[in-house]
């Protein structure tokens, strides 16, 4: 582990790296941990980019409305992989920690640039893991920047600096992984023992949290930031009606839904909506924060509302909330979701009128879509040309 410092003169920069005495640290160990951590970063980057692209679609991007639970899986995987990466990152950084104190700090210009890229890599990895942890625990005050965009741009920095690191270290990694397996001469844990402990930690963290999206494991996941069974009408909520400032507007008996399209505008009261043919769909709410819960929703299919105002096939539909100050006030249903018969303007959930926190008087629920886009307290529906 570490030889605790004796006389103070041993803590000289030229000698600091020699304070670390564990024989367990080796390119073999670091390479193995690096391969696993690299795989975890790749999963987080791809699932994270996917979630970003669904919310801010580039021109080339296409996201289907089926299978209904695909986003629930990709985003559940994003958060679960990030959580499981905590012990991997901890062990990886431990395994190279003495190199931080290498003296002199760099040999030449190329080495200085390489160490600068390592600084980016370690800083961005710690940033992504810690901000992700804070975000799923809904603890925003330590992050006095906008989490969503900061986490997104830092993901590119992490992925990029990881590729640079892999390029720089490729010969070392190849040599380490192809070398014959020789046990490390340690006084304590073996290399396999450490990898087992890292695996056990990842397994324990996963079991303790993944029940926030896998309902059968909800009872086991004692550290899940959400419980898919707890909330108004047995369903979690990310933003309450009070927090959104819509309590009065949503309860107003004069509420009318505005539906606009090429054929004109309809103004529908809640009674008008309830008098239309009702459809029922079993769909998950899948939050960007990694929790999800399935519910039975009843309401009017969006494609029938769109057809009533003369929508052409393949149209997109823009939905606006009663909520005033939120970046998620408006969402657009792309053509596959607007046309899907399961996409509802829901009036009821699990057989009851929607609770105000679930979007009363009515909300959007569409298959295969992030919860943040499932607009609540809908005020206006526009068919886009």
């Amino acid at each position: 582990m570490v030889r605790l410092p004796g006389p103070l003169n041993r803590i000289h920069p030229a000698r600091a790296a020699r304070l670390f005495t564990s024989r367990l640290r080796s390119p073999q160990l670091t390479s193995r941990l690096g391969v696993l951590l690299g795989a975890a970063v790749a999963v987080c980057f791809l699932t994270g980019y996917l979630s970003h692209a669904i919310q801010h679609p580039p021109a080339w991007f296409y996201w289907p409305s089926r299978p209904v639970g695909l986003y629930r899986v990709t985003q559940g995987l994003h958060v679960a992989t990030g959580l499981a990466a905590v012990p991997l990152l901890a062990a990886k950084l431990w395994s190279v920690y003495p190199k931080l104190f290498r003296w002199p700090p760099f040999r030449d210009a190329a080495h200085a640039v390489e160490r600068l890229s390592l600084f980016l890599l370690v800083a961005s990895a710690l940033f992504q893991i810690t901000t992700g942890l804070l975000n799923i625990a809904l603890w925003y005050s330590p992050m006095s920047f906008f989490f969503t965009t900061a986490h997104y741009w830092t993901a590119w920095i992490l992925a990029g600096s990881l590729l640079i690191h892999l390029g720089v270290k490729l010969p070392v990694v190849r040599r380490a992984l192809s070398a014959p397996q020789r046990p490390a001469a340690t006084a304590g844990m073996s290399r396999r023992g450490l990898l087992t402990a890292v695996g056990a930690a990842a397994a324990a963290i996963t079991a303790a949290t993944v029940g926030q999206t896998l309902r059968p494991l909800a009872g086991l996941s004692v550290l899940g930031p959400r419980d898919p069974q707890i909330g108004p009408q047995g369903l979690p909520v990310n933003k309450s009606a009070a927090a959104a400032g819509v309590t009065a507007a949503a309860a107003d008996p004069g509420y009318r839904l505005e539906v606009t399209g090429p054929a004109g505008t309809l103004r529908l009261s809640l009674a008008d909506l309830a008098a239309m043919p009702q459809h029922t769909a079993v769909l998950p709410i899948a939050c960007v924060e990694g929790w999800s819960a399935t519910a039975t929703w009843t309401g009017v299919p969006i494609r029938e509302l769109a057809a009533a105002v003369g929508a052409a096939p393949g149209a997109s539909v823009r939905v606006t909330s009663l909520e005033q100050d939120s970046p998620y006030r408006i969402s657009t249903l792309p053509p596959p979701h607007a046309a899907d018969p399961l996409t509802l303007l829901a009036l009821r959930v699990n057989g009851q009128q929607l609770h105000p926190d679930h979007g009363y008087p009515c909300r959007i629920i569409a298959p295969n879509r992030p919860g943040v886009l499932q607009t609540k307290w809908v005020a206006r529906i526009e068919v886009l040309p």
Partner: protein
Amino acid sequence: MTRTPTALPASIVWSRRLLIAAGVTGAGYGAAGLLTDTSVSLPHYFRYTAAVLLGHDLIVLPAAIAAGAVLTRRLPGWAKPPVQGALLVTATLTVVALPLLLGYGRRPDDPSALPRDYHRGYLVCLAAVWLVTAAVLAVRARRRTASDPEENQ
């Protein structure tokens, strides 16, 4: 160790160049986005990142190494690895549990936000980890006395 590219096969040389070029492009794209996106508050961003980086490298990791060294110092060789492993699991589980234990994310208007008793949950997790560790130690101790009685004297 990375200074001998001339001795490497061409495929490796080109893989390295491609990886580094792709990496510079990706990281550059992220850095440019970060610096130009007005929704990211850069002073806060850099302050947070510096705090996390220095906090990890100069406080959390040295403290974990020192704690591991002190707590396993008096253990016999056969008992060390399971305890070291259990300490690793405990430490990383604590990192994940800490924001939940502190509970700043609770909201009076939203009972579904952090709905569980996380202190109890954390203790349950620790109890499970250390019970498994105790079982592993018991097996190791028994195996040791069975196979190598001399060493016990």
